[in-house]
């Protein structure tokens, strides 16, 4: 029999039940592998911290969601929201699955084109589209959703100079009972602004309106909001078709479906409060089939990002130091912080450890590596006493983190992909000094020669 390890005695507040504002009680969360590849092997190959994506999970998530829609409505197209995660490998997987690209800037447009996505398979959204990017998008036949009156003018001018009639969509916003209402994007429906935009387009005679775009918000937990959105969009589409003679070929309902992630300030676990993809699909498609006229199946475009990629991403991080705070809380310093985990501002992540650790779990804080007070990955989590070198696996982190991460204080780490075949592929190399210095210019007179 092995002798029990000595543990320093601590005073621990008695807690009842599993759920309270400090989070769940500690349920043995151990993860030794992702898709059958051990954490040790991953770290050995590409170090810690490291983002790891699962191709299997990504494709599964996409197919599941796609099927729940395509089995309910005959004309469905998913547009991959680049801002959610525009790593080439991730985009390529989803394009191969059949998604088109949904971009919201010149940079994202160029990135999609560079990856090999043809212009007609790009949906160009966003409030800030430069003239040069609009010109390119028009020439290449991209789907453009107009955000404001100035953009109508821009596109009309470009259409004139290109001497062609171009098809465009407009973005509208509306009240679906969701707060905050995203009224800063597009034309408001209830105030009649959207109708003005249609009149303006019809009056200009250079553009052909063929689509409507709307995005009611993000992390929407109420499927009925989408029913309402669809109903209003379909009615508006028929108003346009009947009064202006345009044919609305697509209804782009944006994204906003939640992933199975725990929001801060919501106590119930995601399994309980987050409706499934099926629920959203049923609300959306049944409303479409109910409201549309016979034999009219405009393309339903969905720009779901988070619900597809979030759960396919993991971050491996390592305990670097252990501290005891003055108030008695245990604290850990790990090698990844808010510089890499933008979503930590609103998510309470699922944090797993890579090994069995003896000892009584107690509330602990996880700090990131930055020399900044805000760098807190987790304010309170029940953990047994973790020794230095323990790996923590944080998930789901696939959405928004690898686009909104910062090169701040530290380099950005490697990103790897576990393929369906179980192979480990490096899809983004860890940054080096050259990556950062490459763009910098030091004026001649500031050159330092301190060593002499």
């Amino acid at each position, binding site marked *: 029999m092995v002798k029990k390890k000595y543990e320093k005695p601590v005073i621990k507040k008695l807690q009842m039940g599993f759920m309270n504002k400090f989070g769940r009680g500690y349920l043995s969360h151990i993860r030794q592998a992702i898709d059958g590849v051990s954490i040790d092997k991953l770290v050995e190959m590409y170090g810690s911290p490291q983002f790891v994506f699962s191709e299997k999970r990504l494709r599964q998530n996409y197919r599941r969601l796609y*099927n729940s*829609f*395509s*089995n*309910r*409505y*005959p*004309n*469905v197209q998913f547009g991959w929201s680049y801002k959610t995660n525009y790593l080439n490998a991730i985009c390529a997987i989803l394009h191969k699955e059949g998604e088109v690209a949904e971009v919201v800037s010149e940079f994202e447009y160029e990135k999609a084109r560079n990856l090999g996505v043809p212009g007609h398979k790009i949906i160009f959204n966003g409030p800030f589209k430069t003239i040069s990017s609009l010109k390119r998008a028009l020439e290449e036949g991209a789907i453009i959703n107009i955000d404001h009156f100035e953009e109508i003018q821009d596109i009309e001018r470009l259409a004139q100079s290109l001497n062609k009639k171009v098809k465009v969509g407009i973005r509208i916003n509306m009240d679906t009972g969701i707060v905050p209402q995203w009224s800063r994007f597009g034309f408001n429906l209830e105030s009649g602004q959207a109708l003005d935009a249609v009149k303006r387009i019809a009056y200009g005679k250079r553009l052909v309106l063929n689509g409507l775009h709307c995005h009611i918000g993000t992390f929407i937990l109420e499927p009925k909001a989408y029913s309402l959105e669809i109903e209003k969009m379909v009615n508006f589409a028929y108003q346009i078709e009947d009064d202006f003679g345009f*044919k609305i070929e697509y209804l782009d309902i944006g994204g906003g479906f939640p992933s199975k992630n725990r929001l801060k300030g919501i106590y119930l676990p995601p399994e309980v409060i987050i409706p499934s993809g*099926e629920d959203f699909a*049923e609300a959306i*498609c*049944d409303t479409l*089939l*109910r409201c549309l006229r*016979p*034999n009219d*199946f405009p393309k339903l475009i969905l720009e779901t990002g988070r619900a597809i990629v979030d759960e396919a991403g993991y971050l491996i991080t390592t305990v670097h130091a252990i501290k005891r705070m003055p108030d008695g809380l245990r604290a850990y310093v790990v090698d990844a912080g808010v510089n890499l985990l933008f979503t930590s501002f609103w998510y309470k992540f699922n944090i797993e450890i890579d090994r069995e650790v003896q000892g009584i779990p107690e509330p602990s804080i996880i700090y990131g590596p930055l020399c900044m007070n805000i760098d807190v990955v987790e304010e309170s989590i029940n953990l047994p006493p973790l020794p230095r070198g323990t790996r923590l696996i944080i998930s789901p982190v696939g959405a928004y983190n690898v686009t909104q991460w910062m090169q701040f204080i530290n380099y950005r780490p490697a990103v790897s992909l576990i393929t369906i075949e179980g192979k480990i592929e490096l899809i983004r190399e860890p940054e080096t000094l050259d990556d950062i210095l490459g763009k910098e210019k030091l004026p001649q007179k500031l050159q330092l020669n301190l060593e002499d």
Partner: protein
Amino acid sequence: MRPKYLKAVLNSYAEIFFLQGYLPGLAFFLCTFINPNIGIAGLICVLTAYLFALFLGMKDDFLSSGFYTYNPLLVGLSIGYLFKLDFLTVFFIATAGILTFIVTYSLANIFSYYFHLPVLSLPFVIVSCIAYLAASQYSNLFVNGLYVPSFFNLWESKLPLWFLGLTKSLGAIFFLPHVFAGVILLGIILAVSRIFFLLAIAGYFTGTLVVGLFTGSLSQSFQSLNAFNFILIAMAIGGVFLIPSPKSYFLALIAVVTSSLFLEAVKGIWMQYGLPVFTLPFNLITMGFIYVMGILGYPYLAKFYRGTPERTLDHYLTYNYRFPGSSRTLCLPFSGEWTVWQGIKGRWTHKGPWQYAIDFVITDEQGKTFENEGKDLEQYYCFRKPILAPVRGRVVKVVNDIPDNPAGEVNKEHNWGNLVLLYDERGFYVLLCHLLQGSIKVKEGEWVERGKLIGLCGNSGYSPQPHLHVHVQLTPTLGVPTVPFSFIQYMSPEKVYFANQLPLEGQRVIALYPDKSLDMKMTFLLDEKMDFVVLVNNVPKTNLEMKTKMDSNGEFYFEINESRLYFGKWEGTFYLYRLENKITPELKALFTALPRLPLVFKEGLHWEDFLPIHVVLGGLRKHMVLLGSSFFPSMAKVKGEYRFLSPDEISGEIKELSLKTYVKLHPIKGIERVEVNTKGQKIVLRREGV
């Protein structure tokens, strides 16, 4: 005489041998002038019949139907055979011509109305018998038959008996029982149709051998001129009324054998009156066989005869490969990808009268219909999925209150569960059943369009797991026998397009919905034109003007110079059907490049089609393949594979002919460019003037 009439009259000569076209007709016409007496008599008889028809107010339709022209022709030939032409004989022939017209017209109507049978040459038999009987009293007519020209007889004795018999009886069809005439006729038949040639020979020898066996004397049976009946029966049954195939050939020979009894019997009676039997055995035996096969719905019965057996065969072979579906066409009654759980004549319940039914479920990549253990209905992928109307029609019955069974259990009391029965005005009912309790969104009496949401997939009735059952029936009562149907416009997960077909058990299908813009693009109004320049190896050759026309059967075609390119748009697919009249390389190129076009675009969508032999092959090879394919149908399979490169570009390949094609559709209407590459030759059709 206008060429139109000339051609029609010449055509009637060809129709005696079931051929169409004035060229073989001209050859036969010239042939009859071996004995000018006969030739002129035939012509006079046709012309009088025609003049009389004109007098009665019947115009072109007299000439357009073979029966009206070739019956008087045969009567004229038969009289010319017997009597020397003089004023009186001409008058006699004219009278007989008018009588033939009257008899033909009445019989043709009676036969087609009561029996759905062609009148063949029965009027000729009747009128010729009457004429011969009457003539036996008219001693004023100059009998010619006594003065048979004898210049051939010198070397006839050197030829084998069977050859003499064959050629003479063949010649006897035109009342020219000479070796010389027979050889010419045989040559013409060989030139026009190898299948006819084989049938004629096989028919002749089968008949004479059987007669020889019965009578004990082959030489006697070879000498009987009436053997031409065997030839005609074999040609008519094996090559005209049935689609040429080993089975049809066999039936033709059976008919020949049975006719030998008939022939001898009739001959016995007719001889009493000094009459030849003419084509009576041929007429009655052929009609009898066709009548029986028609009633039985014999599958090889040809609905269209395309001028020669080869063309009929080509039409039917490609028709069967190209159009495997039925005319009871349904859209898939759902959206997205589903799997056939139980197909037609399935292993569980689709048996006997209910064999024409299909059950659908949704499966995952492993082929499972549920996730986790599948204990809960919610875990089944197809549960609660929308069911859409597969046809436009009226809702005649709705059941909406049968509870859904737990997984693994069935309701034996209410087999069909919750259901919707739709009546399609094309004359059939579509049943959709096992729907979710309370989910049905339509009411009895309501009109629904295709694709309308009618309910959700459930697990009610005789259903151990959620699935959708679809079948078609002819009356509104539940439980009546089912009938064949097929689905239009779907694809497999590998993106293979199916225009109209029935998926097999285990097959995954994805419903497609028509694309209005593509549909508009391929809608051609009458007299609408497309102009092309034809470039061969980049050198402009000719101009093509394609004009949309409709023929008297209501079929649409592009008129291109003298040729016709038949096309049609049916249930979401655009088809080119066939080429008629002059077949030029440009038209072949057009046909091979786009024999069908799905009126729906999906990226990577591809499809196959089978091209008619007359479109892709030429010369000797075409003839050999057509002859061979009457024995081995797969020889006629010329498969083209086509694929969308973009919403308006289609590439194609015919591997058998190492031929590659490319089509670009016009942004607004029709086709913009067609390219066909074969070994060393490139034909391009470039749209002009748009």
